[in-house]
């Protein structure tokens, strides 16, 4: 009888347990264990994340960001230096060009004035020589012209003598010459 009672008890107990475990997520008897183990595992997980994993990854990312920022700053600095060097070079070049321009200009002006004075001097000399030559020519010319009258007179008297057999008188000859030469 006692064994029978026990049997009925287990028989009663089994469907109850099956009912409880009918749908495991709603079986409240497992809740305590799940909450406890979740608290333990998630608590530990949170602690490890907070104290180890997150600071480490954050550190890695921070280092990288710093490094990149540093590199960019360095690149910027170098670029500025290069720009400054280029500007200095440009300025030096412009100065040199200006200087060269000035020197060329000065030289040209100097050469020009030099040439001018020399040319003027040469021209003056030439003018003087020309004047002397002209005077000389004029002298010769007047001399020649004064001799022309005599030569023409002689030639005329000779021609007239040949033509008419008698030499013209000096006065006639002179008169004729004068009218012919005018």
């Amino acid at each position: 009888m006692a064994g029978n009672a026990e049997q009925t008890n287990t028989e009663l107990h089994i469907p109850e347990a099956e009912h409880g475990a009918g749908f495991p997520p709603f079986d409240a008897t497992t809740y305590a264990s799940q909450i406890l183990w979740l608290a333990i595992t998630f608590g530990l997980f949170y602690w490890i994340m907070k104290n180890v994993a997150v600071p480490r990854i954050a550190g890695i990312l921070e280092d990288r960001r710093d490094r990149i920022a540093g590199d960019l700053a360095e690149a910027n600095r170098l670029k500025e230096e290069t720009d400054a060097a280029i500007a200095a070079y440009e300025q030096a070049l412009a100065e040199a060009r200006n200087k060269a321009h000035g020197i060329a200009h000065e030289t040209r002006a100097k050469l020009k004035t030099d040439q001018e004075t020399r040319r003027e001097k040469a021209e003056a000399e030439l003018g003087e020589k020309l004047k002397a030559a002209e005077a000389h020519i004029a002298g010769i010319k007047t001399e020649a012209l004064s001799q022309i009258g005599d030569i023409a007179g002689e030639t005329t008297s000779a021609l007239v003598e040949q033509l008419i057999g008698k030499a013209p008188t000096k006065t006639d000859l002179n008169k004729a010459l004068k009218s012919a030469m005018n």
Partner: protein
Amino acid sequence: MANDPIHQFEIQKIFPIEVGEMDFSFTNSSLFMVLTVAATCAFLILSTSGRGLVPSRLQSVSEMAYEFVAGILRSSAGTEGMRFFPLVFSLFMFVLVANLFGMFPYFFTVTSHIIVTFALAMLVILTVIIYGLLRHGLKFFHLFAPAGVPPVLLLIVAPIEVVSFLSRPISLSVRLFANMLAGHITLKVFAGFIVSMSAAGVAGVAGAILPLGMTVALTALEFLVAFLQAYVFTVLTCMYLNDALHPSH
């Protein structure tokens, strides 16, 4: 009962521990919590042990997870919200890895139990309430009275806000739990069809191609859901934490 779709959610005791009336046994659920935590910690710590300026592949996975969660938190709770980063990151990684572990055949899905997801949701909500009250005192209750609402309307709006606040832990936990549960049941049901149909001769084997295709497609979908639910849980956590930081919206 290999074909029972509910069987996979059963809690089995590994080391029975009982304190008085309470049952704190180490179960398969506890085992997978431990495995989830151990695997995640091991991955995150080992992959970043090189502290490479140029990350290795595994290190970049850890960094991506970090940047991903940091991006979510920063965009919904601002830089001030970064003080909650360890909590949010832990929640995301724990839920994600627990969900993904559930995708292995014969593995237990920790997040398919409402009590686990509810406990995580309560952790978030209690953090919001306690931090909100500590930081803003009674001003924290401005949360229920949005600025710019006429006093008459406030009589209607405030109760709605209270109800929506109270339903947060429920919606947050039920969403994750139901998604994981329903997905695994569906997967198991379709996989069960393959077995039972192919037992019915040549025509059955030919017909079993259909549920096989479904099972393959559902497996892919479940991987998506596993990630998506972890993401949704994280996004909502961040939005609730934003309420703790800035109660007057």
